[in-house]
């Protein structure tokens, strides 16, 4: 006990660790997926809350586990409020869009921009909700700032993204994260973000080049042969299928590497007062997760196909199979069996997504994070109000994701 008050001169960095039991999480999401089916989707609020409670309370920072204090009822109310606000907006969107399209085709584009703005607002407010439900050592995190000011910034950077084919992403992320972290607090400890766009760019430019620039160059080169000497164009069309296949195989590698670089850069930029976060996530750390999801996806597709084939065979008989398509067209039992198979497929796929891309990803990202100067958070005064879940509701209603 007495050793607690003794502070050694150079405090070593402390690791973040994740202790969640994988089997427990698997049972949680399997049970949740089943209930989601029975409740025609309404269980999603409870499942999301249970998943967060599991992830938060098994994440240890300097020996003390975090806690998620949000409740599903709040998400449900947020969703209902968002619905009450979104329905009149959708209706007026329809009426204004009708009028605009009549005047000139594509005139309704600004309305699309309005919904983009709304989505960014939802992302900011949803993060605020989650942050104010995050508690560590009896003190909550909280967030100030304006969701609309954030949305305006995000939209302006979004325009630049279009013109630069995404090359400006690192600077966009840095600027938006600076805004978000500047308005984030742990008790009276103010957050900040020190990640630089240039750092992100240096680590990730090759991903952008392979995933976006190469295909664009390839498409331009193979599309109008009259701009190029004929033999070159011919060669391009011959190797094009191989190139596309190569891109398909490379995509999970590239995306996995991109996400790892992004996580590492983001975490390493976070500060709360003097507390400094650092991530040691390696670029290849997440690639395996994406391949496992792809493997499960292919396996489930094969199982679904076998199931449908078996159902069809049971109904027409193997001998008559060449005419099966004609016989089964519009057959109600086949439709019902197909629907059941499809639902099971979707639910299993959701379980796979949540295990690999939520739980395992969280465990890997948290497990590679360390904190410097954690002693700066040893005596922080509690502050900050709870935010409502309206942002989560909007994000749900508008189908936007992000944090």
């Amino acid at each position, binding site marked *: 006990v007495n050793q*607690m008050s003794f502070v050694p001169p150079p405090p070593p960095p402390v690791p973040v660790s994740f202790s969640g039991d994988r089997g427990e999480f698997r049972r949680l999401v399997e049970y949740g997926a089943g209930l989601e*089916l*029975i409740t025609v989707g309404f269980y999603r609020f409870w499942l999301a809350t249970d998943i967060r409670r599991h992830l938060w309370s*098994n994440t240890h920072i300097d020996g*003390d586990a975090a806690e998620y204090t949000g409740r*599903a009822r709040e998400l449900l109310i947020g969703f209902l409020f968002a619905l009450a606000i979104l329905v009149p907006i959708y209706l007026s969107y329809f009426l204004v869009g009708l009028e605009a399209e009549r005047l000139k085709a594509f005139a309704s584009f600004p309305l699309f921009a309005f919904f983009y703005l709304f989505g960014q607002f939802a992302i900011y407010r949803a993060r605020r909700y989650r942050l104010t439900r995050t508690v*560590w050592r*009896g003190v909550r995190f909280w967030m100030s700032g304006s969701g609309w000011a954030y949305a305006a910034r995000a939209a302006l950077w979004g325009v630049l993204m279009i013109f630069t084919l995404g090359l400006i992403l690192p600077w966009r992320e840095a600027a938006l994260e600076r805004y978000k972290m500047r308005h984030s607090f742990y*008790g009276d400890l103010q957050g900040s973000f020190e990640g630089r766009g240039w750092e992100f760019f240096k680590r990730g430019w090759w991903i952008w080049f392979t995933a976006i620039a190469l295909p664009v160059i390839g498409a331009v080169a193979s599309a109008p042969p009259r701009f190029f000497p004929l033999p070159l164009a011919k060669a391009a069309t011959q190797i094009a299928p191989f190139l596309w296949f190569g891109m398909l195989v490379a995509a999970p590698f590239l995306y996995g590497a991109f996400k790892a670089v992004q996580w590492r850069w983001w975490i390493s930029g976070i500060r709360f007062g003097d507390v400094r976060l650092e991530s040691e996530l390696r670029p290849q750390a997440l690639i395996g997760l994406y391949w496992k999801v792809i493997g499960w996806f292919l396996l489930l597709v094969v199982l679904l196909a076998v199931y449908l084939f078996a159902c069809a065979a049971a109904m027409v008989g193997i001998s008559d199979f060449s005419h099966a398509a004609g016989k089964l067209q519009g057959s109600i039992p086949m439709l019902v069996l197909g*629907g059941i198979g499809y639902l099971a497929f979707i639910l299993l796929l959701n379980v796979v997504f949540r295990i690999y891309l939520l739980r395992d990803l969280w465990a890997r990202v948290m497990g590679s994070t360390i904190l410097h100067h954690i002693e700066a958070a040893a005596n922080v005064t509690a502050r900050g109000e709870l935010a409502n879940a309206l942002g989560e509701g909007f994000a749900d209603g508008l189908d936007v994701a992000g944090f």
Partner: protein
Amino acid sequence: MDSGAENSAAASAPTNPAIYFDGLSSRRRAVSLVFGNALEINQDGHAVVAWSYDDIRRADSPAGSLRLSCLAAPPLARLETRDAALVAELNSRCARLDQDAPGRRGVGAIVGWSLAAAVSIVAVVLFGVPLAADRLTPLVPQSFERRLGAVAEQQVRIVFGGKVCENPAGRAAFIKLVNAVREAGNFEASVESAVLSSPIPNAFALPGGKVYLFSGLLAKADNADEIAGILGHELGHVRNRDGTRTLIHNGGTSFLIGLLFGDITGSSALIFASRSLVTASYSREAEQAADSFAISVMHRLGRSPKPMGELMFRVTGKEASGLSILANHPLTEDRLARMSREDAPPSGPPLLTPQEWQSLKAICVQGN
């Protein structure tokens, strides 16, 4: 045995490790617990605070540890311990530990309320939305309907090429036929109609009262009564304002069904399937109403509605192999049977002379 364990836990309490956070600052305090009338939390031998056992609730914690909150304390004040003896002692003393635990008793209620919500949404889709569409449609101003029609027309012209057939003799015959049907149906003069050059054998009415006939249907037609019946059917849609009604109906149905399964990734196919079931049955009713209108128009003209059924049958063939609850039209053979029942020998003059009929058939042929 029980009391013995209690005594030993109480006796050894001062040395048992527990961590206390007061909810006002993040200060981590190593404390000892004394189990008296209330739970006493002591730091360095001094009482910090006492929690009444009935106010103590469980908070989320990692496996192997117990984390407690207290209703009377600041909401985020926490007491944590990993000591098995302390955990057992606290579990036995705090009777209401799990009273507010989320998700335990609630699952049955969630399922029940969700099913009630689902039933109510389905009931609204099946009964409320058609009723609302019927009641709201007369309230939609004609000017708005014409705007809808104008937007739809632009799209139609893009999709089908949209060349209007303008052969003068054919045009004159077409106008004569449309006017005959229009007057028999008691329409004012505002119905616009045209023949579009397209191989697709079809005809349709747009909101606001525009009727289009594709030349593909003319090519399959054998006489003027067949086309008159089709025009009567389309004018029936205009009269019933089916375009606007379908718009309100489909919009409401999509929105409500979208509420179900809102977030399950990949459920859109399911939503789409159930929506097409509902909207198809609604559209079947609208088609039957338009058929009734066409039949009454043909009777008023003194002509038989049967040729119209024959033309449709010629176009679609027998449809029985299809799934009838998925079809947005009634089965053609059923429609033909209905029109055959309404068959009567002609009592009125032919709608077009043979000469005019030939001109109408050739309306898309460019000539001077």
